[in-house]
């Protein structure tokens, strides 16, 4: 843990300046407010520092001389100082918060947009939870630094220096006597700072351990109960819980000691001052008002000192958070539109895979030397076992990933030369696992596109047979989708995704046929909808149903990343190869009519 701490500190020092400069880019648009805050800081301090001095004046110049009018003047000055401190502090705080909230909000937007541009492979490596943490918890840690500190640390330093300077101006020797305990106090505080930073870190780690344990155990409660291991798990939980408590006990002791220490030193300093003052007043050098002012200054002196430890810790975690956030922003976007885009004059849907090789890593080829051509409007069925590379074909087509060798042409233009957005607009993808967003049915069809009217929407939905179930929902198109679409059946989700694809009217369609079984009636609706959807579009179907395969213009049999056979149903039958054998099987079982499938049947 100590090592970590040192590493963290070393990292912090090296990158601090660079990080601040980057952070400044977010602050820059709000530099007016920032400037305001910076100006308000010394002013707040000044008004704060004036108050004890006014007390001194009041005591020495007016009360001591029985000057009631003068006392009133001093009183008014005091009011002025209070009001001034109030106003400038508030202005400073508001300005700081405005800068912080706005620049951090901009930072979050940048992070979000960057996430959207990152390649799919990035998301395979980084769990969703971690990314969410970057955008929320980490940015919030930076916010915390603004709220609880940064600028006020400068103000604290200003105040401390100011107090010492004023005290010195009033009386050098008195000041030195009064602050005699400061050096040992600072040493003691540094001791506690290191200790409490470590315990604080331990507390955070142990709390995270408790929470992770709870999350996991509650998620797997069935396993715990099935193996009757409640006692064992309880013992493990108790251990974590106890560790957390012990760290907190320690931290409480440190904090209580530090708190009391600072208070005690404050009182002792006043005593020392009185002792010295008593000697001097006897000789007439120090006035009583000075003592009063010093008491007040001391009160103000020890407040920021007490709070410094907490602020320091907050700053530390903010710096770590900034680092992590920028690291995410620095992740390169590997798939983007080229600077010079090229597009065909007319998009017709002609697709060529030209000796395509693809691997996610190294030379573990998912596709080897895949070549085929699709004429506009042609329907092709991809057939092959799991892992044959069927779904990779669709990923390469719309550049979720780029090929290693060879090229893919759409209407004669390499997909890597297309403008990325234009390219993806040509291709509609319907996956078997339908993803639904929070929102209503309509939003899930239009995906928030406002140029799709309600009429378009309903036309699309009824064309693909989705209208019927949607209109039966209590609120129709406005029916909210529950988490992960749990209020819709699998078949309904399929139909919804067909409506979505149709509403976008793509030239090219990639359809990953669902393997899960639905009731026969819905099955018919889906078959019908698929046929309508494919009409007039170049379509690649990752097929699981024989009926779909038989109706395709062309069948591509993929095996272990290679194209083994291409042809129409008739051609492949005549060729008596792999497909022919499949067909033989199919022919021998009359029960496999429309509606049945040869994928899994099971729960």
């Amino acid at each position, binding site marked *: 843990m100590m090592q970590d701490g040192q590493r963290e500190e070393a990292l912090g020092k090296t990158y601090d300046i660079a990080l601040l400069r980057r952070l400044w880019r977010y602050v820059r648009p709000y530099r007016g407010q920032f400037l305001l805050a910076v100006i308000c800081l010394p002013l707040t301090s000044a008004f704060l520092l004036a108050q004890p001095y006014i007390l001194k004046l*009041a*005591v020495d110049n007016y*009360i001591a001389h*029985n000057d*009631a009018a003068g*006392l009133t003047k001093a*009183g008014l000055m*005091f009011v002025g100082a*209070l009001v001034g*401190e*109030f106003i400038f502090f*508030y202005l400073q*705080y508001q300005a700081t*918060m*405005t800068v912080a909230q706005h620049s951090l909000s901009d930072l*979050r*937007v940048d992070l979000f947009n960057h996430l*959207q541009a990152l390649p*799919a492979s990035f*998301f395979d490596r980084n769990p*969703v939870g971690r*990314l969410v943490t970057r*955008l929320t918890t980490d940015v919030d840690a930076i916010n915390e630094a603004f709220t609880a500190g940064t600028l006020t640390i400068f103000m604290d330093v200003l105040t401390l220096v100011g107090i010492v300077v004023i005290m010195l101006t009033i009386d050098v020797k008195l000041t030195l006597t009064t602050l005699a305990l400061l050096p040992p106090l600072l040493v003691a505080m540094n001791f506690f700072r290191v200790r409490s930073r470590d315990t604080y870190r331990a507390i955070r780690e142990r709390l995270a351990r408790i929470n992770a344990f*709870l999350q996991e155990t509650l998620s*797997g409660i*069935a*396993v715990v*109960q*099935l*193996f009757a291991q*409640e006692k064992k798990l*309880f013992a493990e939980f108790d251990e974590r*819980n106890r560790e*957390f408590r012990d760290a907190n006990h320690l931290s*409480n*002791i440190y904090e209580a*000691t530090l708190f009391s220490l600072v208070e005690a030193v404050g*009182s002792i300093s006043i*005593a020392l001052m*009185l002792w010295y003052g*008593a000697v001097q007043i006897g000789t007439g050098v120090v006035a009583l008002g000075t*003592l009063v002012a010093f008491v007040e200054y001391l009160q103000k002196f020890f407040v920021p000192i007490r709070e410094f430890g907490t602020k320091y810790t907050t700053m530390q975690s903010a710096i770590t958070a900034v680092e992590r956030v920028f690291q995410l922003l620095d992740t390169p976007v590997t798939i983007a539109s080229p600077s010079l885009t090229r597009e065909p004059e007319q998009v017709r849907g002609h697709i060529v895979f030209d000796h395509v090789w693809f691997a996610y890593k190294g030379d573990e080829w998912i596709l080897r030397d895949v070549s085929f051509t699709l004429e506009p409007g042609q329907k092709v069925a991809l057939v092959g*076992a799991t892992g044959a590379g069927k779904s990779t074909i669709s990923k390469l087509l719309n550049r*979720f990933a780029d090929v290693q060798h060879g090229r893919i042409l759409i209407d004669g233009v390499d997909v890597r030369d297309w403008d990325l957005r234009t390219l*993806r607009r040509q291709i*509609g*993808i319907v*996956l078997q696992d339908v*993803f639904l967003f929070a929102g209503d049915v309509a939003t899930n069809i239009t995906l*928030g596109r406002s140029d799709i009217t309600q009429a378009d929407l309903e036309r699309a939905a009824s064309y693909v047979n989705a209208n019927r179930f949607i209109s039966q929902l209590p609120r129709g198109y406005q029916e909210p989708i529950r988490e992960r679409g749990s209020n819709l059946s699998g078949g309904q989700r399929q139909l919804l995704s067909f409506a979505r694809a149709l509403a976008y009217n793509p030239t090219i369609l990639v359809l990953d046929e669902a393997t*899960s*079984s639905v009731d026969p009636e819905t099955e018919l609706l889906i078959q019908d909808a698929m046929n309508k959807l494919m009409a007039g579009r170049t379509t690649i179907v990752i097929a699981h149903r024989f009926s779909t395969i038989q109706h395709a213009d062309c069948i591509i*049999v993929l095996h272990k990343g290679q194209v083994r056979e291409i042809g129409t149903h008739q051609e492949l039958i005549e060729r008596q190869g*792999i497909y022919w054998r499949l067909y033989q*099987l199919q022919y021998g*079982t009359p029960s*496999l009519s429309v509606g049945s499938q040869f994928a899994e*049947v*099971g*729960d």
Partner: protein
Amino acid sequence: MHRLWGYIVYYRARYMRGILCLIVSATLAMSIPLLLKWTIEAIQHQRPFREVMWHVVAIIGIACVQGVVRSFSRFMIFNVGRDIEYQLRNDLFAHLQKLSLGYYQRQAIGDLMSRLVNDVTAVRLLLGLGILNLLNTPLYYIYAGSAMVMMDPQLTLAALATYPLMFLFVKRMSRQMMEKTLKVQEGLADLSTRVQESVSGMHVVRAYVREDWQAAEFGRRNDTFREESMSLARVRGLFPPLMKAVSGLGLLVVLWYGGSHVIAGRLSLGDLVAFMGYLHLLAWPTMALGWLISIVQRGKAALKRLESIFQTQPEIVDGQGDGLARQIHGEIHFQDVDFGYRAHVNGHLVLRDINLTIPAGTTVAVVGRMGSGKSTLVQLLPRLFDVQNGTITIDGQDIRTCSLAALRHWVGFVPQDPFLFSTRIKENIAFSLPAVDMERVRWAARVAHLDQDIADFPRGYDTVVGERGITLSGGQKQRMTLARALLADPPILVLDDALSSVDAQTERQILRGLREATHEKTVVVISHRIAAVRDADMIVVLDEGRIVETGTHTQLVERGGIYAEIFQQQALEEELAEL
């Protein structure tokens, strides 16, 4: 509140010690302004230097003692708060472990987590900071108030006039702040959900080029969050300057009004300084009193929510039957069993009229289409759910009359969804043992055809599940859960389509190996692949919650019913996959 009293009473001795320290500390603290007053008066009246010296020494002495006593009072009371927090968390966890699966299907884990984290914290604040200030503030007021009144009653009233204001103000503001803080937290949670959804649905967003839409949706929530944060900042920012202003006003009154009293000769300068000292001492406790109100309110609300967890009774509880000692043979009998989930309000039954006898030591396969009720049927065996009508017996004993621990030692259940803990592989497999026994772990891994996979991991059995870089495939996870169940050595083993992600050939090999390794066990296996279970002693076919066919593979294929149909379909699938 009742539960809370239990904890407080339990720790009463330590609370009392802390409170004693608190009283001593407050008494000492309050004597310091008085000593200040005497010192200044001594200086003013040019008393002998020795007298001043004594006062100074007294202040130093008291400050030191008070520092020590005060730190004791603080951490003693705060530590009791932490102790109770620990106890409360343990009690909650123990209770949650008892609740049945049905509860967890209704309750989102995220909500539970937030209770366990936030509500427990709120209760702890109430018990630590809350109790400290609840006692500290009145103490300070009694001491300081009486000292001030003795010096100058009028000035006391005037100087403290602003303090009720401060109290009311803090009370109001802290309530507002709590509300706004809650809103900001919700906003942050909303942002999290949004990002989570966007990342999960990224493929759709990209395929349809809807990044702008997502950005706009995110931007909208981001803006709301920013505005809520700003609104919180506006209240929060008022706090420190207003506090200073209010205590400053008290000081002003002392200066002005008190000053005029000094001029009039009714008050000494020493009194004036002492007044200022007392005002300083009262500022923080007054502020804390304002906070206290919301701490108490929040703590009470949190306690109520926690209490509702404690009040939830487990639906499935121990029967008054045999303990672990009894050896069983493993004969299972279903008698007129009906079952429906509670969520299906319309009384839809998932299983109807199930009558089935599974002789001890046999392997029985349950097959059927999706939604036919196979999983539900086997989930009734370890009492993950209880039957609605009818009875299930093991060796003739109704399973509802056994203790849950005993029943679950008898029935080893391997679920379809492989759940593993993020511990080492060996610890996952040896989950049912108090300590890892490598010999048995290796045996179980071998039977589950997992030993080869584990050997390929750089750290073998010490590999931590879910650690970065090592991702287990679905099939590996499933085989690991099988190994875990095997190691527990139950007389009855239930596989709820537990090898669905394993390839067909391996599944078949595992099931074959299982028969040798478990020849005396009763095995109930569900598989979506019929070929894998064709060797079973008996095959039960379910359709729409009823048993429609039973028999051996050969009998059922000959019969030409549902089983034969599914079998044919799957034969095709397998052939296609092998081409």
